[in-house]
Structure formats: structure tokens, C-alpha cells
């Protein structure tokens, strides 16, 4: 662990004793100390959903010595629930083993995205833990008739340092519950951390090795029926009515852009949905919704001259995302120029758990069981459909997610489940087959990027001009692009610390109507490839080592340089490479963290590249739980690797090509490199790690591939059209 100072995000924390209503509404154990703590949720993707909602979390200390942290946020494998509870354990001075963690329901919960779940909220949880500790100390001091300063805390008890008497938290909790909440508390100094920064085990592991963990798809509600979705294969299409109920179905329900088939079990529902023939009213332009057309449009827009006007219709307009020095002007006088054209496909999320939602609606109540990254949005979706029900009638049970990856922000599947439940008047578990899940996604946007580089006679880079043509996630959701353009289109190529004094980065909004959404690392998922491959190509043009070129360009960014050097060291950059192997390197900052990766590959086959190892170095400021950070890096790398190798969704007449893992492959054991992760606790603001592992892997592999074969990969995926069997 670093001995440098640790900065954690400051949030405005409000802490109170919980109300009687809070106690009754969710706390099954009576008595004890129950603190409620709130802050404003400054979700960093405010446009996605739910921002600005006041958040309430709870700590309960029972007379039976149990300590329970009730925590919001969506758990999709990233360990957020355990991560935040670690902050409570730290400042409350209880052993990690004694802490229990429970999720809380949606009206009290927040959005999980932007890799910020743990890092942003840590101060809040720590402050709450310290507040509970202070109350318990005050209760002990009052009991003994001494000043709180003679009391010490240790492992769930308060000790009178004069008499050595001791009272447990459980014994003190009832009195503590009656004392005033202190206005200020002292947090444990980072040099004394016992829990934070250590690899404590997550709380959710047991249920995940014995089948007991309950994901959304595992929900059982008495009397429920099973609905399977048959979406219109083209987004925006509507079903033609009437629809005949197939033999064996309990019901068919026409939805906005889908039909739900209801049966007595999941399999019957999916089969009936699959074979049901539905006529659709397709969107008028569906015949033009082809990948070839999208590529043509992108080429045209690459030369767009339409001026960008904040607040206007900016499709096809040229937005200046970043400019520095003389911008692109140096290109015309450069001794040497490079023009590099990169292209990226639409990608599906394909979370391991398909989309699903269970809903029960009665005349007086509405309850949801939903695997979601945006519980509060689910609540709003339900309230919009049932405007006459009072707020107290709604309950959202946040279920474990079998992966979220950005797909489970969306509300399509939640609304569908609610509509079916309302139509039938009984509880419904609605699910997507894998084919439906891949076929109607909010895809990672396609992107086309052109990079022009000017180099003078002395090998100085005198101009860098990047233009990205990308559909806008925000604009598709009704956000009018204003003075800030669309950051998701250029994040990863703007704000880079490479010493390239003359830069121009432009964003042009592509007009494709294919629904797009947030996919693990969002714009960084392709922009890191653009920037890092361009740097690798510049190094080749200059005859430089790509690692050393980066070193030069990062001379003024000590933090990135540390990460880069550590990765080169860890990956043995300066050591001889095995015969038939090659190495590649890439660096990408995202979500406040900096990640560099060195890969070692050998000769590719026609369907994949063998990646033997990945050396990954991450600076996330301070790793709250190094074990989780390692897992997130490994996971991000595998996710980026699958996408780089095979990930591609094409469209024909608006219909997605991706059907199942058979034609949208994912890496398996044989494809997994040995991934070694090194963490640098630099002392910078603590930042997220859920997404930053993804961006560098594809350009690192492509760089190694070039070294091995002399061929530049400028279009992803590396191996389009590969199929996979079991």
C-alpha cells in the first residue's frame, strides 16, 4: 500500500437517526442503532438517468452485535456493495467478517455507471461509519460518566482506557440511538487503514458458488406466469393487430414495438414467441438501414462542412471538440503526412444473464424485481405507467445482475414487463431469449475516425487532426447537443496528455437510427484504439520504438509516465521476445484512472490471435480493494479482447446480424491470456476501475500484430464473421 496521502471524493453528507417509518419499512430487526445517511447523487452521466436524486443508505447496529450496511447501487459483478461497506468497517472499527451487506430498494437508490460506484461514494460511507462510532463512544462515556476522550474503540467494542472496562457495540447501540448526531467526526487517517486498501473477501461469494445467489431471472413470485418477448426485428416498428394467441399460450400482449407471449413456463413462452408469426409496421426508412449505407454516410460526413450551432439540429455538423496551437494548419506545410482511417462496428452487450424483469401490479400496488443499473429509473418507468398510484405503492427490488455492461440502464425490458403485468392482472416474469437480447440492443455505436498527422523534416509532429463520425447516444435520447457537443464521441482522443502542441479534434454526429447506448467504457472503447494505434503508426513512420515515443510525448505527465514505465517493465518490453512472438503496448486514461498494457502474442490463425500474456498497470489513485481492482482489470481486458477479435453487429434492412454466441463469439478459457496486474496507488483522487481495463487491450494487440505480420489493423473486429460452437 502507498504511504502517500489519499484523496477521496468529497460529497455532501447528511446523517440522521432513521425515522420510525424507515425502521418499519425495511428493517426486519427491531431496536439497535439505525443511522440514515444521504447525499446528492452527482452521477457523472447525468443524461442517462436518475441524477440529482437524494440518496439514503443505512447502517444498523443490533443488540445482537450484528452490523448491517444497507447500500444502494446495482451489483453486476464489480463488488460495489462490498466495496462501500468496507468504508463503514474501516471507520467503525469492526472486523470485516462481522459486517453484513444488504441492498436497498430503488426509491432510495442511485445510478451505477461511469465506473464511479465505489470511488465516488467512499467518503460518505466512511463518514457514516465514523458517525456511528462517535455515537457509540458517546454512549459509553455517558454510561461510565467519563469524558469521551478516555474511551478507545477496538474491534466492535468501546474501552475505558482508565479502568479497562469495556462495552460492546451491541450493548451500547440502544443508548447511542437516543443521542444527538455529532456535527463533525474524525476519519481514520489513511496511514492507519486496516480494511481499505486490503483484499478483503467480497460478501457475495458463497451464493455464487452454490447456486443460491438470486439473479433477476431466478425470481419466483407466487402465482406468476412467464412471458417471452418477441421484439420487432427493426427498432421502432410496431405490431399489426390483431395477433392470434397461439395454441398453448395463456395470452399474447401487444406492446409498443414487441409482442409478449405468456405461458406456464419460460421454455414454452420462448418457443411460442419464436414460432409466432407477427406482421410488423416497419419504420418508413427501414430498407435503408444497412451497414453499407451507414458506411457511405460516414464517408460523406467525413468531409462535412456543416457548421455546428449549439442547440440546433447538429446531425452532420462539425463540432470542434478540442483545439490547441495551430490546430491542423501544419498539415499543409508538413514534410511528411499520414492519413489513417479507422472504423469500428456496432457492438452488442450480451450480458451473461439475458434481459428480464418480474412485475406484479394490483389496483393498489406495483412491485418490481429487476436486475438493473438504474433502480430509480425503474421506479420512474413504473410511476409513468401508473400515474394514479401514490408513491408509497411502488416497490423496486434490486436483484443481482448477471452482468450489466451498460445495457441494464435501459428501461425497455422494465416497461415491457410492467405493461404485460398490467394487461394480465397477475405477476409476470418477462424474459428475452438470447436471440432477442442480442437482436434488439442499445448497441455500442459504430464509429469512423480519420487521423491526419503532419511531421516536419526534423521528425517533429507539427499537426494532429482527428475527425470522428459517430452516432450520438445523448441525442438519440432527446438531448439537444449544446455548447459541449457530445463528449462520448471523442472521449479518449481529447484531453490526452501527449505533448502534441498543434491539435484539432472534431466530432460529427452520424445520422444512423440504430439505437445506441452505453457499453463498458463508452467512447473510450474505440477512441483509445484511434489514439494509440495512431501513436504506434507515427512511431513506425519515425522509426522510433513505440514505448520510447510515448515516453517522449508524456514528458510532462509524470503520472502517465509512471504507469507506462511500470507496464513496460512488467511486460518485459526491453527483454528479448520469444521466437515467433511479438509485443505491443498501449496506454489509455479513462474515468480518472490510467491504464497501460503490454501484450505478448504469437502468429495468428484465421480466426484468432493467440495472446499469451497481458501485463497491465493501473493507477486508480488509491485501490480500495486491490483484489477487486485486479478482477476488474482482468475482466475488462477479456471483454475488450472478445470485442476486438470478433465483436461486430451489422444491419440489413434494420435487422441485426447478431443472433447468439454462435455468431457473436466471446472468449473462452483457451483464448484467455495470463493477465498480471500491478496497481499504482499514486495518491491522485480515487477513481473507478470497472471500465478502464477495456480501452488499451485492442490497440496493444493490434500493435503487436503489426510487429509480427507487418499488417496494420485499422478496422475492428480483427476476425469478422467467425462462428463459435459449444
Amino acid at each position, binding site marked *: 500500500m502507498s504511504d502517500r496521502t489519499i484523496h477521496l471524493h468529497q460529497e455532501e453528507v447528511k446523517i440522521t437517526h432513521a425515522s420510525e417509518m424507515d425502521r418499519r419499512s425495511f428493517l426486519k430487526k427491531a431496536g439497535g442503532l439505525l443511522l440514515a445517511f444521504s447525499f446528492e447523487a452527482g452521477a457523472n452521466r447525468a443524461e442517462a438517468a436518475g441524477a440529482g436524486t437524494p440518496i439514503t443508505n443505512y447502517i444498523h447496529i443490533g443488540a445482537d452485535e450484528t452490523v448491517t450496511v444497507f447500500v444502494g447501487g446495482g451489483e453486476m459483478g464489480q463488488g460495489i456493495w462490498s466495496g462501500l461497506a468496507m468504508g463503514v468497517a474501516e471507520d467503525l472499527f469492526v472486523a470485516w467478517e462481522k459486517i453484513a451487506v444488504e441492498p436497498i430498494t430503488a426509491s432510495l437508490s442511485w445510478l451505477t455507471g461511469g465506473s464511479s460506484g465505489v470511488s465516488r461514494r467512499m467518503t460518505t460511507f466512511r463518514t457514516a461509519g465514523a458517525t456511528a462510532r462517535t455515537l457509540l463512544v458517546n454512549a459509553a462515556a455517558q454510561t461510565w460518566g467519563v469524558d469521551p476522550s478516555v474511551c478507545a474503540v477496538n474491534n466492535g467494542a468501546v474501552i475505558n482506557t482508565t479502568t479497562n472496562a469495556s462495552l460492546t457495540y451491541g450493548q451500547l447501540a440502544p443508548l447511542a440511538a437516543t443521542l444527538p448526531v455529532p456535527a463533525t467526526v474524525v476519519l481514520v487517517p489513511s496511514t492507519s487503514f486496516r480494511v481499505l486498501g486490503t483484499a478483503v473477501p467480497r460478501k457475495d461469494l458463497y451464493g455464487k458458488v452454490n*447456486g443460491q445467489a438470486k439473479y433477476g431471472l431466478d425470481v419466483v413470485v407466487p402465482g406468476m406466469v*412467464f412471458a417471452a418477448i418477441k421484439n420487432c426485428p427493426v427498432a421502432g416498428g410496431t405490431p399489426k393487430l390483431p395477433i392470434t394467441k397461439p395454441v398453448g399460450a395463456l395470452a399474447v400482449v401487444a406492446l409498443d414495438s414487441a409482442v409478449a407471449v405468456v405461458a406456464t413456463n419460460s421454455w414454452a413462452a420462448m418457443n411460442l414467441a419464436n414460432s409466432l408469426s407477427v406482421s410488423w409496421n416497419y419504420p418508413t426508412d427501414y430498407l435503408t438501414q444497412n451497414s453499407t449505407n451507414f458506411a457511405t454516410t460516414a464517408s460523406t460526413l467525413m468531409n462535412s462542412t456543416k457548421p455546428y450551432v449549439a442547440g440546433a439540429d447538429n446531425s452532420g455538423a462539425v463540432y470542434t471538440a478540442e483545439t490547441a496551437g495551430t490546430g491542423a494548419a501544419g498539415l499543409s506545410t508538413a514534410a511528411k503526412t499520414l492519413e489513417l482511417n479507422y472504423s469500428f462496428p456496432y457492438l452488442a452487450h450480451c*450480458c*451473461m444473464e439475458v434481459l428480464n424483469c418480474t412485475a406484479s401490479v394490483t389496483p393498489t400496488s406495483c412491485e418490481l424485481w429487476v436486475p438493473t443499473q438504474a433502480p430509480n429509473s425503474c421506479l420512474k418507468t413504473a410511476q409513468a405507467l401508473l400515474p394514479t398510484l401514490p408513491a408509497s405503492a411502488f416497490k423496486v427490488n434490486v436483484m443481482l445482475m448477471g452482468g*450489466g455492461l451498460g445495457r441494464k440502464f435501459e428501461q425497455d425490458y422494465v416497461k415491457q414487463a410492467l405493461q404485460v403485468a398490467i394487461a394480465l392482472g397477475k405477476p409476470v416474469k418477462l424474459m428475452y431469449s*438470447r436471440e432477442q437480447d442480442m437482436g434488439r440492443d442499445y448497441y455500442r455505436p459504430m464509429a469512423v475516425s480519420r487521423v491526419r498527422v503532419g511531421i516536419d523534416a526534423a521528425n517533429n509532429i507539427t499537426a494532429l487532426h482527428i475527425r470522428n463520425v459517430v452516432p450520438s447516444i445523448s441525442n438519440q435520447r432527446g438531448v439537444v447537443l449544446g455548447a459541449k457537443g457530445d463528449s462520448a464521441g471523442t472521449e479518449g482522443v481529447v484531453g490526452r496528455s501527449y505533448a502534441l502542441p498543434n491539435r484539432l479534434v472534431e466530432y460529427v454526429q452520424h445520422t444512423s437510427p440504430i439505437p445506441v447506448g452505453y457499453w463498458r467504457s463508452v467512447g473510450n472503447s474505440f477512441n483509445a484504439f484511434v489514439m494509440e494505434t495512431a501513436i504506434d503508426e507515427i512511431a513506425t513512420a519515425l522509426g522510433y520504438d513505440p514505448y520510447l515515443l510515448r515516453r517522449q510525448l508524456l514528458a510532462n505527465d509524470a503520472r502517465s509516465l509512471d504507469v507506462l514505465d511500470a507496464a513496460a517493465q512488467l511486460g518485459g518490453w526491453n527483454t528479448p521476445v520469444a521466437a515467433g512472438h511479438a509485443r505491443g503496448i498501449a496506454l489509455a486514461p479513462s474515468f480518472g484512472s490510467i491504464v497501460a498494457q503490454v501484450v505478448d502474442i504469437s502468429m495468428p490463425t484465421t480466426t484468432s490471435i493467440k495472446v499469451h500474456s497481458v501485463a497491465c498497470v493501473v493507477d486508480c489513485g488509491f485501490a480500495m480493494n486491490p483484489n477487486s481492482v485486479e478482477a476488474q482489470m*482482468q475482466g475488462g481486458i477479456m*471483454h475488450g479482447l472478445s470485442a476486438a477479435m470478433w465483436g461486430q453487429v451489422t444491419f440489413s434492412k434494420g435487422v441485426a446480424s447478431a443472433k447468439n454466441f454462435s455468431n457473436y463469439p466471446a472468449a*473462452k478459457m483457451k483464448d484467455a491470456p495470463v493477465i498480471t496486474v500491478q496497481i499504482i496507488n499514486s495518491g491522485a483522487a480515487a477513481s473507478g476501475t470497472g471500465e478502464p481495463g477495456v480501452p488499451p487491450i485492442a490497440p496493444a494487440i493490434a500493435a503487436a500484430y503489426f510487429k509480427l505480420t507487418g499488417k496494420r489493423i485499422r478496422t475492428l473486429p480483427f476476425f469478422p464473421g467467425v462462428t463459435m460452437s459449444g
Partner: protein
Amino acid sequence: MAYTINVNGKSYNVDVPGDTPLLWVLRDVLGLTGTKYGCGIEVCNACNVWIDGSAEKCCKLPVKEVTQVKITTIEGLSADGQSHPIQKAWIAEQVPQCGYCQSGMIMRAAAMGSKPTDAAIDSMPNICVCGTYNRIKKAIKRAGTGEFGAYPPKP
């Protein structure tokens, strides 16, 4: 039509069409939801269970074909749900992320016996979208050291 199947040492009578895949009988009829649906086309192996001690996909396996065999699901791998050496190794190495693929992974790994070759591990056909492969490999090897006891005999 009613079928009798043996799951985790218990006999169940299930009244479903004979072509209903075992996966959905386990999940929707018996409430054994530890076995997961991932693809339904025998590619991802999220649905792995043991049929007479060998790891098999069950998302297309008709229930009428498994009336004469012993079926073991993740719920039946160990009596207390955590004492199989593979389960202990999974906890010790903190393998699961979202956890959704792990029932299938564990049933596949445990069926390989305590000392599978690297080639056998590399040929595991299961998909983990979270990318937990490195830890899975470590956990299998660690379980093979005997640190968590001997592998119990398969049913």
C-alpha cells in the same frame, strides 16, 4: 405427461411435455435456479449439470431422456453448499464476478477430477463474459493440491 427424474439424490415426478429441456424443468418446475440459461443452443455452457457424474449441457436435453440417470446440479454438489474442494478454492481465489456463469463453470471444473491437465482446463467450453478465466485456472490448480481435502466420489 409425467416423468420421474433423479436430481441430487432425490426423486421428482414432473408433469411436463417430454421434449421440455431439463434446464427448464430444473428452473421452473423444481425451483432449482442455480443452473443458468445463457444461450439455449448448447454454446455457452452456463447450463452445465452432471449426468451420471459427467458435465453436460441441459438447455436442449429433453427431460424424457434423463429418467434413467442421476442428475447433479450445483445445489447438490456438496451437502452444505460450500464444502466441495472446488467451491472452497473458488472462494479462496475470489473467482466470481457477476457469478452468473459460475454454476456451469464449477460443475464443469469439478467433473474433471482433482488434477486435470492444462490441456483439459484450456478446453473448458464455458463462456464467462466477466472474464474470470485466470482465477478459474488458479482455483482448479489450487483445489488439486489437496489444500481443501480430497474430491468426494461422484454420484
